[in-house]
C-alpha cells in the first residue's frame, strides 16, 4: 500500500520540496522582477508592462479555449471590446464606481463568452473560427454604429480608477495582481480533472465522452470563464488607453492573442506567458515598422503553424521529459486490481440486457434484431466476421449510435436514449479498436481521466484551488497509479503517452477503464496486434476483473482467447445473432464454422 502512495503522486507533488522549488523558482524570479520593476524603469516601460499584464489576463483564459480545449476562437478581441465598452459606458453614462464597473465588465464578458461558446457545441474548425471572426466584426460595427451609447467613431473615455490605482505605478500593481490571479486560476484548472477533460475534448473527443467528460457543459463553462477574464482585461485595457474607439480593437489584436498561445505551446502555462511578453514588446522594438505589424503577425502565425505547430513547449518536452526505458517489459500485477475497482458500499450487481436491437445505415442493416445479455462477473465473448456488426453493437451499447428499434437495459436503467457520458457515469466503460489516448499528457494523467465523473468539485471551486479538489485529485492519482501497476505500465507513468508503443496504449486504455471502477467493461479487439505473451497477460487481466464482479463484453478475433476465457459466446453474422451459447456449443456449431471459424 505504502509503495503506491510513495511513487504514485506524480509531477506536482506538494510534499516533495526539491521538486517544488525547481518548479516554482522561475515563476518566483519572474514575480520578483515584475514586483520591483517600477523602481528601475521609467514610466513608459511601466505602461508597456501594464499592457503585457492586461493581455495576459485575457490570454490566460484564451489559453484554456485554444491551448487546452483546442477550439479555434480567433475573435477574442470582440470580448475585449465588450469588456472595455461595458466599463466605459457604466462609468461615463451611469456614473458607476470604476471598480464596480470592472467587476460588471467581467460579468458581461462572461455572458458573451458563453454566447460565443454556444456555436462551438455544433460547429468545428473553420466553421467555428468563422463565427468568432464574425462576432468580432459585429462587435466593432455595433460600437461604430450605436453612437448614442458608444460614441461611435469618436469613442468614450475609459474608466478612471480611484487612488492608489490612478498613477501609472499604482495601476501597474493592480494589473499585475490581476495577472497573478488569472495565472493562479488557470493553473488550478489546468492541473485538475477539468484541464485533462479539456485536453481530451481537443485530442480525442470520442474517448472523452466515453470517460464521462460532459463535453457540452465543460465547453460552456470554460467559454464563460474565459469570457469573464477577457471582460476584465477589456475594462483594464480601457482604463490604460484612457480613451477607447472601435479602432482600438482591430483584428490583429485577436491574432496576436492567438499567436501568444500557439507559440508558447498548446496546453501549457509558462509558454504562452512568455509568448505574451514577447509579443507585447515586439512593436516597441520594431517601432519603425509599425505599418507592417499586422503583416508581421500574419507571418509569425504562418511560421508557427508550419514550423512549430506544437509550440516551444513541445521542443522543451522532447529534451527534458522522461522517456520510457528501452527494452521494457509490460508485466501486469493482477493482484492490484481489487484495490483499484472496489467501490466502497457499491456492490449492487448489474447486468446489461440488449433486446431486439436494430440499426440501419442507409440500406445497410448493420444490426438486425440482436439480443444479448451480459451478467456481472462473467465474460461474454462476441465474435463474427468483419462487418458483422460487433463494433456497431458496442457503439449502440456505449451510446455513440442510437438504435432504430429495441431496448437496452443496464440494471433497472433504460439507457437506450442516454448520452454517452451519462452511461459512463453509470459504470459502462469501453476501449477502442484504435487506442484513443492523449499523446500530450502523461500516462498517469491519461489513466486519471477514467475517473472524470467521480470528481465532485465544481469548476469555480477547483479554479480557486480549494483543498477538497486537491484531495480528490490526490486520491484519484493514487488509484490511477495502482491501475497502471495492475496492467504493468507503472514504470512509464511519467512519460508522455505518445511515447508508448501501440500495444502499451491498449493496456493504458484498460487501465483508464479500471480507474473508472466500471460495472461493465466493453473491450473492442483488445488483443489486436499483441504478441503471444501479451495476449496471455491480457487474458489473465480480464479474468481477474471478471472474478471481481465486473461484467465483460469481449470483441475479439483471437478466438482461442475468447473460447478459453468466456463463459458465454455470441456469434454475429450480417447483423444477426448466428449462434449463442457456451464456448463448446458455439465452436462446434456448423453454421458458425461455415460463416466464420472455418474448419
Amino acid at each position: 500500500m505504502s509503495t503506491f502512495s510513495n511513487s504514485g503522486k506524480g509531477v506536482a507533488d506538494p510534499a516533495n520540496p526539491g521538486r517544488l522549488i525547481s518548479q516554482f523558482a522561475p515563476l518566483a524570479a519572474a514575480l520578483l522582477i515584475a514586483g520591483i520593476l517600477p523602481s528601475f524603469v521609467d514610466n513608459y516601460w511601466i505602461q508597456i508592462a501594464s499592457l503585457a499584464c492586461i493581455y495576459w489576463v485575457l490570454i490566460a483564459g484564451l489559453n484554456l479555449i485554444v491551448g487546452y480545449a483546442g477550439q479555434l476562437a480567433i475573435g477574442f478581441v470582440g470580448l475585449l471590446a465588450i469588456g472595455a465598452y461595458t466599463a466605459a459606458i457604466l462609468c461615463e453614462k451611469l456614473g458607476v464606481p470604476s471598480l464596480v464597473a470592472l467587476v460588471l465588465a467581467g460579468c458581461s464578458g462572461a455572458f458573451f463568452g458563453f454566447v460565443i461558446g454556444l456555436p462551438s457545441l455544433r460547429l468545428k474548425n473553420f466553421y467555428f473560427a468563422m463565427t468568432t471572426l464574425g462576432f468580432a466584426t459585429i462587435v466593432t460595427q455595433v460600437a461604430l454604429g450605436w453612437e448614442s451609447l458608444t460614441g461611435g467613431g469618436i469613442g468614450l473615455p475609459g474608466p478612471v480608477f480611484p487612488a492608489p490605482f490612478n498613477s501609472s505605478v499604482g495601476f501597474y500593481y493592480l494589473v499585475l495582481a490581476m495577472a497573478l490571479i488569472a495565472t493562479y486560476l488557470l493553473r488550478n484548472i489546468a492541473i485538475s480533472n477539468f484541464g485533462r477533460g479539456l485536453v481530451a475534448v481537443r485530442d480525442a473527443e470520442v474517448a472523452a465522452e466515453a470517460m464521462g467528460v460532459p463535453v457540452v457543459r465543460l465547453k460552456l463553462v470554460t467559454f464563460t470563464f474565459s469570457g469573464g477574464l477577457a471582460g476584465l482585461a477589456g475594462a483594464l485595457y480601457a482604463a490604460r488607453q484612457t480613451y477607447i474607439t472601435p479602432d482600438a480593437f482591430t483584428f490583429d489584436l485577436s491574432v496576436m492573442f492567438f499567436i501568444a498561445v500557439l507559440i508558447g505551446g498548446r496546453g501549457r502555462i509558462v509558454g504562452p506567458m512568455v509568448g505574451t511578453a514577447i509579443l507585447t514588446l515586439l512593436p516597441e522594438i520594431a517601432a519603425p515598422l509599425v505599418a507592417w505589424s499586422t503583416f508581421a503577425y500574419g507571418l509569425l502565425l504562418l511560421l508557427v503553424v508550419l514550423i512549430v505547430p506544437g509550440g516551444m513547449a513541445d521542443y522543451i518536452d522532447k529534451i527534458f521529459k522522461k522517456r520510457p526505458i528501452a527494452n521494457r517489459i509490460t508485466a501486469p500485477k493482477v493482484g492490484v486490481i481489487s484495490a483499484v475497482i472496489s467501490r466502497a458500499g457499491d456492490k449492487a450487481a448489474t447486468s446489461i440486457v440488449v433486446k431486439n436491437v436494430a440499426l440501419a445505415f442507409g440500406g445497410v442493416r448493420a444490426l438486425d434484431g440482436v439480443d444479448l445479455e451480459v451478467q456481472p462477473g462473467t465474460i461474454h465473448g462476441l465474435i463474427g466476421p468483419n462487418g458483422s456488426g460487433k463494433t456497431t453493437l458496442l457503439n449502440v451499447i456505449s451510446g455513440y449510435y442510437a438504435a432504430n428499434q429495441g431496448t437496452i437495459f443496464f440494471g433497472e436503467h433504460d439507457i437506450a436514449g442516454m448520452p454517452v457520458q451519462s452511461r459512463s457515469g453509470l459504470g459502462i466503460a469501453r476501449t477502442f479498436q484504435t487506442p484513443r489516448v492523449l499523446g500530450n499528457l502523461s500516462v498517469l494523467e491519461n489513466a486519471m481521466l477514467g475517473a472524470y465523473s467521480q470528481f465532485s468539485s465544481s469548476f469555480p471551486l477547483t479554479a480557486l484551488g480549494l483543498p477538497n479538489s486537491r484531495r480528490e485529485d490526490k486520491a484519484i492519482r493514487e488509484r490511477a497509479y495502482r491501475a497502471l501497476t495492475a496492467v504493468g505500465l507503472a514504470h512509464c507513468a511519467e512519460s508522455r503517452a505518445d511515447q508508448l508503443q501501440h500495444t502499451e496504449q491498449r493496456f493504458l486504455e484498460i487501465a483508464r477503464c479500471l480507474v473508472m471502477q466500471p460495472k461493465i467493461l466493453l473491450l473492442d479487439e483488445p488483443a489486436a496486434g499483441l504478441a503471444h505473451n501479451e495476449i496471455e497477460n491480457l487474458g489473465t487481466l480480464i479474468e481477474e476483473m471478471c472474478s471481481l464482479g465486473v461484467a465483460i463484453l469481449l470483441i475479439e478475433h483471437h478466438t482461442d482467447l475468447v473460447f478459453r476465457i468466456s463463459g458465454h459466446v455470441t456469434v454475429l453474422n450480417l447483423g444477426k445473432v448466428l449462434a449463442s451459447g457456451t464456448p463448446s456449443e458455439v465452436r462446434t456449431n456448423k453454421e458458425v464454422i461455415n460463416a466464420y471459424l472455418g474448419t
Partner: protein
Amino acid sequence: MILSILIAGVAIGSIYAMIGICYNIMYSTSKVLSFTCGQLGMIGAVFGAWFIGDLQWPIWLGFPAAMLVGVAFGFITELIAVRPVLKNIDQHLYVLSTLAFALMVQTAAAIWWGTEPRPFRTLIGLGSGALAEKYWLPVVVCLLTVGTIDLFYRKTLWGRAFTAISEDPGAALALGIPERRMRVISYGLAGFVGALAGFVGGQLLFAFFAIGALLNFYGFIPIAFGGIGSNRGALVGGLALGILQQVANYLVGGVFVGVVIFALFIAVLVLIPQGLFGSSAARRV
C-alpha cells in the same frame, strides 16, 4: 424601388456566390476551407483597377492580367498555406495557415494600394439606371461561371477527375489520377474564379483592401447554407443572401443588418450544419 433593391441584391449576391464557388473548388481537391477566398476577390478588384485604371491598359490586356494575378495567388496559397499542413488534415491547421496568409496579403494591399476605397472603371458601358453595367455584369458572369464549371465537371475527363478526387482521394490516386497536380490546378482555377468575382464586382464594391475580409464572410455563408461542394447551392445561397442584405439595409439600415445576418448565419448553421444541399456528416467512431 422594390425592383432596384432586388436588382442590387441579385448583383451583390452573384459576387458572394462566386466567392462561394471559389471555396468549393479549393475544398473539392483538398478538403480545405481557406480564408484566402475573399482576398482573391480583393485582388481581382484591386489589380483590375490598377491595370485598367492607373496604368490605363486596355481591357483585353488588363482583364487577363488581373486574372493571371489571381491564378498565381491561388498557386501560392496552395504552395505555402495548404500543402505543408495537408499531412495532418485532422488537426485543421489550414484554418490558421490560410488565415495568416490572408492577413499578410490584406496588409500588403493596404500598404501598397492605400486604405481608401477607389472607384473601378466602367468596362463596357452598356445600360444605365437599374440596368447599369455594375448590376448586370456580375449576374451574367456568375451564371456563366456556374454553367461552365458544371459542364466541365460533368462532361470533360479533367472535370470527372476532379469529381473523383473530391469523392474519394485514395481511390482516385489508385486509379492513377495525379492528385497533387489536380490540387494545384484547382487552386489556380479557384484563383481565377475569385479574382473574376472581384473584377466584375469592382464597380459595385470598389477597389478596396478591406473587401477581402467582407467577401470571406459573405462568400462563406452561401456555401454554409447550400452545403459545401454544391455550386448550385452556392448560387441559390448567394442570391438569397444578397437580396436579404439589401432588403434588410432598406428596412433596418445601418450596422444592424450585419448583426441580423450574423445571427441568422449562426442559427442556420447550428440547426442544419450540413446545409440545405449538402450530405450529412460521416461516422465518428
